[in-house]
């Protein structure tokens, strides 16, 4: 069975179905059902995945698409791609459930009513593209998804976002497009220089030998990914986009779309241009560390919840990039795990912030206070999500952050030490935000708040559960990730420093 094609086809067909349904309520239900089907399929596929297989990309499908350009429809997953696809498939139904009223103009801060069907159809199209971008084993196909997925997100921000939505949407699109176009030059040059007449990723590994060429091509890819991730100093679009996007779209933007950047660094930059990656590692590490500290400090100063969460993500993306470019087993596996955990953690934060904003109609922190007295469950889940943002031991984010720090300490001691300060700063921005919004006397405007209703609990529950479960027992995920990271690093020809002892660390909590 062509698992990956099915995973992409189902949401696309679902999107067509949703846009044809005349009734808004039915459209939402159809969208939710479709996304649950995708999730179920993903789970079944994941159980059939064999981490110890010698075959690198499983469930592989390769068909000619445009022979003239050497382009294939090539999909397949290794451990890294699998967990990211699972992350996407999991977040989409949660986001659909959370966005139930985002588009229909109810709620205190809602923009004027827009087409509900379009919103959910866009979500499903985006899901197909997210799966496609992680599954692509053809560099050109990856590029096509990489660029095409901007369009649904652009319309989601621009049509359904906050007051400055069109500014944010255009900024988001132009930044990403610019990075993407630089990557296009590198993609073309990769094909021309490699002279393999194919874009299939496995065949392109090791095809570029000349160090000078490698460096230029690396830069083309890396800048695109650094804009996407985003790394400091390419980050300025993210706070605007995330703050203006509806909460659900923000989750997918920060939780999944941005991961394409760090995933691209790990998969394409390291493996296609190993020498150049090593050459540029000091630069990237500096950018990553600056981003960790800068994102955290700026987050402390934010007065808007969504912007604050966006800046924390910039800090976290610094950790992921640090882990990727440290090129040790622990750091690599940690970075991959971080991508998934960050999706859960930030997803939960954005969604709960979205519930708050839905109730109060403002995203300013100053407009809240003492929410925990009126909505204890909301406040409690916000606290857990927040604590996962500061990597509290016992929550899954701790495992990944610890692995990244430890793995990079092996090679880059100074960088790891400075990066560790990000953990301390995280405690400040999260706890201070929690304190200002949830504790203290109950603000007048907050008094009428209801607690989370059943739908909202179904949104938050799974995320919190996953954060806790993988905090205590990350082994299943690491089992999938580790062999894939090993293979990646072995084609970069980095001698591993220590054997992976990650399982112990995770379980040792």
């Amino acid at each position, binding site marked *: 069975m062509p698992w990956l094609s099915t995973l992409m086809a189902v949401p696309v067909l679902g999107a067509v179905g949703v846009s044809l349904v005349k009734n808004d309520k039915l459209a939402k239900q159809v969208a939710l059902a479709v996304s649950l089907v995708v999730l179920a399929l993903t789970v079944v596929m994941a159980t059939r995945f064999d981490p110890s297989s010698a075959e690198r990309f499983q469930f592989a499908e390769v068909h000619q698409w445009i*022979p003239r350009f050497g382009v294939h429809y090539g999909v397949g997953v290794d451990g890294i791609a699998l967990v990211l696809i699972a992350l996407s498939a999991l977040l989409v139904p949660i986001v659909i459930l959370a966005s139930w009223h985002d588009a229909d103009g109810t709620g205190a801060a809602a923009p004027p009513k827009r087409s509900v069907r379009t919103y959910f159809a866009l979500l499903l199209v985006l899901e197909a593209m997210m799966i496609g971008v992680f599954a692509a084993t053809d560099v050109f196909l990856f590029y096509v998804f990489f660029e095409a997925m901007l369009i649904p997100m652009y319309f989601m921000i621009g049509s359904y976002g906050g007051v400055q939505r069109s500014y944010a949407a255009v900024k988001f*699109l132009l930044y990403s497009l610019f990075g993407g176009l630089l990557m296009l*030059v590198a993609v*073309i040059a990769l094909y021309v220089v490699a002279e393999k007449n194919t874009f299939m990723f496995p065949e392109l590994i090791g095809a570029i030998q000349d160090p000078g060429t490698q460096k230029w091509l690396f830069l083309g890819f890396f800048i695109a990914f650094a804009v996407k991730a985003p790394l400091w100093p390419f980050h300025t679009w993210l706070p605007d986009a995330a703050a203006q996007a509806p909460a659900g779209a923000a989750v997918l933007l920060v939780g999944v779309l941005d991961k394409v950047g760090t995933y691209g660094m790990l998969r394409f930059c390291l493996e296609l241009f190993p020498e150049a990656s090593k050459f540029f590692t000091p630069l990237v590490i500096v950018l990553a560390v600056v981003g960790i500290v800068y994102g955290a400090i700026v987050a402390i100063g934010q007065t808007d919840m969504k912007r604050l969460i966006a800046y924390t993500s910039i800090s976290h993306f610094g950790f992921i990039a640090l882990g990727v470019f440290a090129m040790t087993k622990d750091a690599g596996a940690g970075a991959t795990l971080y991508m998934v955990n960050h999706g859960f953690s930030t997803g939960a934060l954005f969604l709960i912030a979205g519930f708050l904003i839905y109730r109060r109609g403002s995203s300013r922190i100053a407009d809240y206070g003492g929410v925990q007295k009126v909505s204890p469950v909301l406040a409690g889940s916000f606290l857990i999500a927040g604590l996962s943002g500061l990597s509290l031991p016992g929550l899954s984010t701790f495992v990944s952050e610890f692995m990244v720090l430890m793995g990079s300490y092996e090679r880059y001691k100074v960088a790891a030490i400075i990066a560790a300060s990000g953990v301390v700063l995280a405690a400040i921005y999260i706890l201070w935000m929690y304190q200002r919004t949830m504790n203290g006397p109950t603000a007048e405007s907050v008094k009428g708040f209801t607690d989370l209703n059943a739908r909202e609990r179904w949104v938050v529950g799974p995320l919190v559960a996953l954060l806790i479960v993988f905090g205590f027992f990350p082994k299943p995920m690491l089992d999938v990730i580790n062999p894939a990271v090993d293979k990646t690093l072995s084609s970069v020809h980095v001698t591993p420093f220590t054997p992976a002892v990650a399982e112990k660390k995770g379980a040792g909590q």
Partner: protein
Amino acid sequence: MNGTIQAPTIEYALLSPMLIVFGAAIIGVLIEAFAPRYLRKSIHMPLTLLALLGAFATTILGGVNGLPTSASAMGAVAVDGPALFVWGIILILAFVSVLLINDDEQFVAQAAAVPGSSDEEEAVRSGYAQTEVYPLLLFAVGGMLLFSSANDLLAMFVGLEVMSLPLYLLCGLARRRRLLSQEASVKYFLLGAFSSAFFLYGMALVYGYTGTVSLKGIGDALGVVSGQETLLLIGTAMLGVGLLFKIGAAPFQAWKPDVYQGAPTAVTALMASTVLVAAFGAVLRVFWVALGGLEWNWQPVMWGIAILTMIVGAILAITQTDIKRMLAYSSVAHAGFLLTGVIATGAAAQNAKALSAILFYLAAYGFTTVGAFAVVTMVRDAGGEAGHLSRWAGLGKRSPFLAGVFAFFLLAFAGIPLTSGFFGKYAVFAAAVSGGAVPLVVVGVVSSAIAAFFYVRVIVLMFFNDPAADGPSIAVPTVGTSAVVALAAAATVVLGVFPQPVLDLADQAASALFIR
């Protein structure tokens, strides 16, 4: 000399597309002269469409029958792979444009009447409808066919004029905003006449150097004749000016926005798509076939022009407030992208690759352009089309489908993957990279990013802004117009998802390059 005159041999079968179009044009003139007024349109319309279809069919037949290895009509016309491909595109696009023209609303009742005069009122009152549009269009299309396939400079000049003169007239026929339309017509005529003069003088100088006007002869002579290179270089530059004017490359782009804005939109659609195609056919012939040996001299200049064209087109488009002017500057930028392909010369295989890329790009761009202008004809105010961008605000709410299609065309212009524009751009950029023009491609993507800004700005206007209170109405499209939009959208999707068949066709057409 034995006193008898040899009759020239003419390959009628090969040349039949051109002959059919010219023949129909002449019949059209006779219809204007003899058919009663009320019947004219119903005769013209099928005649024009049939002629274009017939010409297209014979073009395909020419391709199926195998290509000749030498030039036809005593060396005046080269019916080779690229020529047939270009003819095919021109004929389809012209066919599509005729469907758009079949809408009385757009054309003035009587071209000769002074705007606002009693003559004009009289003409409107008596229900005159313009029908000379059809023969004029056929002449223009015939000229394009000759222009893009001419194998000597004289024939090329004849083609250039036969193509241009009817277009000058067609530009002045807009029913609304007569003054703008006539101004466009006069500007186009004056500047076009200048450029023709440049071309003619360049031709004379090149003739002075090589002693021949045949492209092959010029190419052969380059290696043989020595001395007086100045003559050749000035001649080359002047030929270049004449040709670059037609494609609207900077710094010869000034006419495009005015003419595109003033001309009736259906005519703009025709010009924006087919003239570009024909002119690129001619540019390639002159620079690759005749002046291929002079590559080292014209390439650096062409680099500069390509860079300037891309940047000028992209940046000036940002400041535009009229949709047609914006599309005009966008077409300037696209001409620049195409020029990167013209520069990407090298060995024969590389040339074939670049040529095929250009051919594919022209096909992709032509369809999207016609579609975009077809949408423009449908968005109307009381005084005609709503050209000003502010009038387009909120169109996405009022007619989501139309705005969606237009947004799709704009994304194709911007070169977003899964649209035809992406593969067109990819193909020429790939050819340029393998031809060693990496810096040019970097400039190309940077200006694509700038260009994306103004395409996206229109999408923002249509979808994210609230509609104006007294916004334009959407004309109920005629069958023709809807067919045009549907066809263009379909072509944009198909070429964006399954470009392989057309790429194969372009490859096949380009594989043998130009015959000499």
